[in-house]
């Protein structure tokens, strides 16, 4: 199976929520994404079943969503983040 092609923004979000659940406001602060970009990144992660989300997935209300990587997706998330580290290694 081919790993999904996630955008850099989606990987940033995934890295931020891998170890702890975060709300949209904290995600914007940690990743530096604006609401629209955060919405797109989260949409990608949701489509890949990499995150579990609570709240409305809507660009206007993106700060109020809660995001967590479910335990069943830990392995998959680590694989994707590990590949990213490997690609970026000198």
């Amino acid at each position, binding site marked *: 199976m081919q790993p999904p092609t996630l955008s850099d923004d989606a990987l940033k979000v995934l890295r931020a929520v891998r170890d702890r*659940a975060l709300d949209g*406001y904290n995600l914007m602060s940690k990743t530096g994404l604006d609401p629209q970009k955060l919405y797109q990144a989260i949409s990608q992660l949701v489509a890949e079943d990499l995150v579990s989300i609570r709240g409305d997935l809507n660009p206007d209300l993106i*700060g109020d969503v*809660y995001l967590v990587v*479910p*335990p069943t997706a830990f392995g998959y998330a680590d694989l994707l983040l590990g590949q990213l580290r490997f690609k970026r290694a000198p």
Partner: protein
Amino acid sequence: MTGFASPDIPAYFSYLLVLLVGTFVARANVNHLMAGFGNRWAFAGTWWLFLAYLALPVALFWFLDYTSALQDTSLFAALVVAIGYRQVFAGGVQGITMPGQSSALWQPFEAWVTRTNERILTRQKQYKDRFDERVRASLAANPQRLGAFETLTLERSNDPAALTQTLAPLRTDPPPPGAPARIVNVLWRDLRTSVPEDYGYLLYRRGLVSWWQYWRWLEDGRSKLISAGILLALVALGIAAALWLTSSSAEGEHWRNPLLRYHQWRFLKLNASDRDRWRSREYLVAELRMVSADAAQAAKQTAAVLRPLIRELRFHQIAQRQADEALQLVVDSHSPVVTAAHMPELIDCLRTQNDTVRLQIHRALLALQRAEYAGTEPDATLVKWVPAKDESAGDVDARVRQWQQWWSGAQRGTPGRPTTSTR
């Protein structure tokens, strides 16, 4: 792991160790799993997860011992299972192999953990939304508080000019419908975006939320209160259990009975280590040496110690070693009061379908007769009797009756002095 060199400790210490270390591991697991969930310990689901993570190593330790993958008296095995049960399930610990397909049980457990986690996340979001809503409503309802909130937000905003511009259409005269609530919503989002971690503290410092509200909802106060309550309840329960166990009843202190049952279990346990069996044997012998001189009391005490062991002799598939050990204990602990207390039951055990055990019981009866009732000889044919495989139920019954007749006579006569020592 059974052949692994490790200090051999009593099994109750091993299980206690697994439980104690498992408590820390379970707490760390739950905290890791739910990192970022505010007030996570305030949810019943979190405690269920904690209990499941705590029960898992204990159950696994018992299961691995039951299947002889390890011994439950091994100190190192207890530590390995308590700390690394996840690796044990994954087959990543050399020397400990999960039997059959049992490691597949991890998957449904993980699925349950995920479902519980999701439920808690939903509840947590609901509670947080309600808190936010209450604070926003209180700000919108009071112009002074709304002013203070606006000042705070403008001070902290990443872009005060843009914020002022967004607020302008809501400040017209007359104001649009629901203007205060809409102003609060705009300010709220801006403040939360600007200071996502500390917005609650800032609201509290400006007197916009009470300390109690702030502590309960944003400083995990509910979690702390519930954890402290549960801890206090456990301490109280522990103290009550300790007081009860050390208090006395007619049969002595309450802890004696569970400890006796524990040693009886260990004594008959087939895959117990030699040292563990020896410890239990020593305990049981010591109990039998302490029986009262009073016949009625002695019968009661002896029955408590030996009856469960003697009863096992009736089971036709009893392991040879178990029968050997039980009968050796019976013979070794002979004394006038002890032997008199269990003799009828031991004679009745001759009815077992296992001819080898029947022979062992017969020999034990002869040994006891020589030790305690040397003055009353059994019938010569009975002494020479060798139980055989094809013996009929009637033949066995006749021998049992012979032994019972001898016992009636022996009870009437004065017990003879021991002529043969079996020790």
